[in-house]
C-alpha cells in the first residue's frame, strides 16, 4: 500500500478533516513536551471513537506503517515523538467519561480525558490520586502509557496502582480486554508504563478513593537542601507517610516566586512542602509532630496554610517551578533521576560539583519522599557549545543517580530522550527480556518504534520464510 493510499484510507475511516497532512498542520504535532526533538510524520489521524482507533491501527498494520499514539503531548521524554513516514494517532477526541460508579469505587473513561477531569467527575466524595504537575491538561491515556506519578504518589502510589481495566488495541488491530483481577498473566501491569510500545489503550477503568477528611499543609524554609533533607529523613523515620513531601532549592524558589508571588523566602536555601492528609485526629497528631521535626532539623521559618487558598498558593508555586525557570534562564534540560532518599545530600553535592565544573546553573525541584529529583540544567542556546555542555551535564547527573542505586527516570519515562542511558541501568540480558515482552505484544515493531530500547531491534521471526521487515526497508532498524 502506498503512502497516499493509506492516507485516503485514514480519511475514509476518520473523516477527511480529521486526517492532517499539510506541513503546517503536521508541525503542531512534530514534538511533545520535550521540544528539542522534532519529527514530521506522514499524517496525523484524529479518530473520534475506539472503533476508529482500531480501524486506523489495522490500516497501518496492513500498510506495514509504524504509528505513535499521542495524548495531550505533555510528556517530557519524547515518548510521543512521531516516526518519520509513520502515522501519529492523536487521541484528543476520545474524551468521554463513560461511567462513574462510586459503589465500585471506579470510573471508566476514554484516553483523551484529562487527569484533573477524572477527579472532578468523582468529586466531592472521591478523587483520583496520581497528580502530575500537568494534570490540568495531560490526558489519562498518556498517564497510563507513562505510568505517571506526581506529588502525592509517595503515599498514594502511581498510575499503575489505580488502573483496574483496559481496552487495548494491539498493533495488528486486535482488541484485548485487560482486567486487573482476571486469572492469568498481569498483562495490565505490563502494559501500564510501556510508553505506547505495546499498543494503544482506548478505554480505561480506574480506581478512585475517598477524599481525605482533613488536609494540612506547611512550607518550611531551611538554610540548605541538606538540612531540609534531614527533616525528610526525620519525618519518614518517625513512621509518618505524608500525602506529599516536596523540596525546592534556592534557584527554583527564586524562579517560582517571581512567577507566583506566594511569599516564599528568597533568602532560603531550600523550601520543604509537607502535606498530611487523612482522618482528622490522625492528621492533627502527625502534623504537630512534623512541625517539631522541621524545627529540630533547623527550619528557620515554618508557615502553615490557614485556608484552601493559602494551600493552593503553596502548590501553585511548586507546580509552577518548571515553567517559571524561563524567568531565569532561556532554556533548560529537565532530568528525572531517582535516588535512594538516604543518598540525597551526597548526590546533591555531586550535582553541585558537576554544575560548577561545567559553569552552568542547575536548579532542583524534587519529590523528596521517594527520592525523585528533577534537576533543571539551565543554558542559553545562543551561546556556542552551551546546549551540548548542558546535555552532557544532564547525562552525568543521570549517571550519578544510577551509581547511587537509583533510576534514570522516576515518572517522565524513557522515550527517546533517555534510551541512551538504559545500558547504565540494564545489562544486555535485561534488555533482551524486555524485548521478549515487546515482541509478544507487537512482533512487527509497529507501535511507537525507536522508543525505550537503546538500540532498535527486531523480533525473532515466527517460523516461516524470511521477509524484509517494513522497518528494515525504511532503514529504521536492523536485524540482530
Amino acid at each position, binding site marked *: 500500500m502506498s503512502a497516499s493510499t493509506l492516507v485516503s484510507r485514514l480519511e475514509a475511516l476518520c473523516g477527511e478533516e480529521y486526517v492532517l497532512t499539510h506541513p503546517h498542520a503536521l508541525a503542531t504535532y512534530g514534538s511533545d513536551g520535550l521540544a528539542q526533538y522534532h519529527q514530521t510524520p506522514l499524517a496525523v489521524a484524529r479518530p473520534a471513537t475506539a472503533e476508529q482507533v482500531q480501524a486506523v491501527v489495522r490500516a497501518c498494520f496492513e500498510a506495514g506503517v509504524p504509528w505513535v499514539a499521542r495524548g495531550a503531548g505533555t510528556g517530557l521524554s519524547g515518548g510521543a515523538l512521531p516516526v518519520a513516514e509513520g502515522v501519529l494517532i492523536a487521541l484528543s477526541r476520545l474524551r468521554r467519561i463513560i461511567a462513574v460508579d*462510586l*459503589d*465500585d469505587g471506579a470510573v471508566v473513561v476514554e484516553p483523551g480525558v484529562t487527569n484533573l477531569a477524572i477527579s472532578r467527575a468523582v468529586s466531592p*466524595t*472521591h478523587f483520583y490520586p496520581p497528580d502530575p504537575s500537568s494534570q490540568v491538561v495531560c490526558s489519562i491515556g498518556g498517564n497510563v502509557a507513562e*505510568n505517571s506519578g506526581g506529588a502525592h504518589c509517595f503515599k498514594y*502510589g*502511581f498510575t*499503575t496502582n489505580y488502573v483496574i481495566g483496559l481496552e487495548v488495541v*494491539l498493533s495488528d488491530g486486535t482488541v*484485548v*480486554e485487560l482486567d486487573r*483481577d*482476571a*486469572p*492469568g*498473566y*498481569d*498483562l495490565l501491569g*505490563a502494559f501500564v*508504563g510501556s510508553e505506547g510500545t505495546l499498543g494503544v489503550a482506548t478505554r480505561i477503568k480506574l480506581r478512585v478513593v*475517598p477524599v*481525605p*477528611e482533613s488536609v494540612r499543609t506547611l512550607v518550611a524554609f531551611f538554610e540548605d537542601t541538606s538540612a531540609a533533607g534531614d527533616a525528610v*529523613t526525620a519525618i*519518614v*523515620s518517625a*513512621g*509518618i*507517610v505524608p500525602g506529599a513531601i516536596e523540596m525546592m532549592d534556592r534557584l527554583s524558589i527564586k524562579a517560582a516566586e517571581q512567577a507566583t508571588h506566594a511569599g516564599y523566602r528568597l533568602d532560603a536555601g531550600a523550601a520543604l512542602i509537607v502535606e498530611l492528609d487523612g*482522618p482528622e485526629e*490522625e492528621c492533627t497528631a502527625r502534623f504537630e509532630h512534623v512541625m517539631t521535626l522541621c524545627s529540630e532539623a533547623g527550619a528557620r521559618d515554618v508557615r502553615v496554610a490557614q485556608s484552601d487558598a493559602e494551600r493552593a498558593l503553596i502548590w501553585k508555586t511548586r507546580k509552577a517551578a518548571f515553567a517559571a525557570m524561563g524567568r531565569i534562564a532561556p532554556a533548560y534540560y529537565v532530568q528525572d533521576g*531517582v*535516588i*535512594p*532518599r*538516604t543518598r540525597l545530600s551526597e548526590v546533591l553535592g555531586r550535582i553541585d560539583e558537576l554544575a560548577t565544573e561545567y559553569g552552568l546553573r542547575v536548579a532542583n525541584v524534587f*519529590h523528596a519522599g*521517594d*527520592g525523585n529529583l528533577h534537576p533543571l540544567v539551565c543554558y542559553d542556546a545562543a551561546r556556542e557549545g552551551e546546549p551540548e555542555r548542558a546535555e552532557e551535564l544532564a547525562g552525568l547527573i543521570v549517571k550519578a543517580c544510577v551509581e547511587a542505586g*537509583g*533510576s534514570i*527516570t*522516576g*515518572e517522565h*519515562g*524513557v522515550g527517546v530522550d533517555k534510551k541512551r542511558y*538504559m545500558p547504565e*541501568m*540494564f545489562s544486555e*540480558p*535485561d534488555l*533482551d*527480556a*524486555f524485548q*521478549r*515482552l515487546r515482541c*509478544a505484544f507487537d*512482533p512487527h515493531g509497529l507501535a511507537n518504534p525507536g522508543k*525505550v530500547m537503546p538500540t532498535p531491534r527486531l523480533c525473532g521471526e515466527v517460523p516461516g520464510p524470511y521477509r524484509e521487515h517494513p522497518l528494515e526497508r525504511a532503514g529504521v532498524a536492523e536485524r540482530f
Partner: protein
Amino acid sequence: MLARATADGHTVRLLGGGTKYSWGATGPESPIELCTGRLARIVEHNAGDLTAVLEAGVRLSDAQERFATAGQMLALDPPFASAGSSEAAATIGGIVATGDSGPLRHRYGAPRDLVLGMTVALSDGTISQSGGKVIKNVAGYDLAKLFAGSFGTLGLILSVNVRLHPKPAGNATALGAGEDPETVAAAARSLAAAPLELDALDIAWRAGRGGVLARCAGADPLKRAQRAAQLLRDAGLRDVEATSEDDALWERQRAGQRSSEGALVRVSARPSTLADVLRAAALCDGTVVGRAALGVSYVEVAPDSVQRLLGELPEGARGVLLDAPAQVRSAIDPWGVQEGPALELMRQIKTRFDPAGTCNPRVFVGGI
C-alpha cells in the same frame, strides 16, 4: 540448572515453601523439582529508604521479624506467613509467584504493587533484572508485574526488591454482624466510601450470618475504630463493637483463605455485587472471607458444590479454584479462562519467555 534441563528436554517444577503447591492445574510429573529453600538471604534492608532485597526462598515471617526491628513491615499478610507461627512456611518467592495476599491488600495492594524490581532466571539460563530498588522508577518494562502471579511459568524468581511501610504501633478493629447479605454488603460499602483510611476492610459469612471487620492503625486506632463502629450501627448491623484485641480476628480471616478438607474458590467480582456473592455462597452452604472494597472473596464449599457455586455467581464474576481434593481438581479447569485475544497474548508471552516449555508446564491458564 534450568538451562541444562531445557537443553536435555526436561521440564522443571519450581517451588518455594510448598504451601500452595497444589494450586493451578495439575501438570505432568516433572523429573526435576527446583526448590528455592537455600536462596534464603535477606540481601538488603535499607531502613531509611523503606526498601529491601529478598532472595526468593526467604520466609516472609522471617523477613517480617527483621523489618520489625526497624519499626517496619512488608505490607503483605497472606496465610502461612505470620511472624512467630510454626506453620509460617510461605516464602516471598512463592507468595509473589502466586500473587497471594491477605487483608492488608485493602490498603497496600497485592504483591505486584509492593515489588519494585525482580531478578529472574529464564529457562535458557539467562538471568535478567527489571525494575529497580527505589520506590519510584519507570525505566524499562515492568516485568516484575508480569512474573508476579505467573505461577512460575515464565521462569524462576531469584530475588525481589520490595517496598516497605512503617509498621503501625497499634491496631483496632470495628466489627458488626447481620443475617441479610444485602445489609452486610451495604455496611461494608459505607465503610469503603468513608474517609477513615482503613488498613483492612473484610467481610465474613458463615452459617447464615455475616460480618464486617474494619481495621484501623495509626495515631489513635481505637478512636477511629469507634467511628467505624458507629457507621456499622447506622448501616443496621448488630453486635457492633470496637476492640484493640483484634489479632485473632484477622488470623481467622486469613485462615478462611485456605481449605484443608473442602474446596476453596477465589472469586473476583465488582464490589457492588458482593451481596450476590454472599447469596451464592449461602446457597451452597459455603463460608466466605474477603476484601469487601476490592471485590475479592474466598469461598469455601464442599468439594461437590464447586460447580454449583460457579454457576450461582453474579454476572461478570470469576472464580478460580485454589484448594481442592485431587478428584475435583482433575475434573474441572481451575482457572476457568475462556479462549480469546487475552489468552492468545498470554500464550505469546509464554512462548517468548519459555519457548521450550520447561517451567511449570501446564499448571497455568489455558494449559500454559
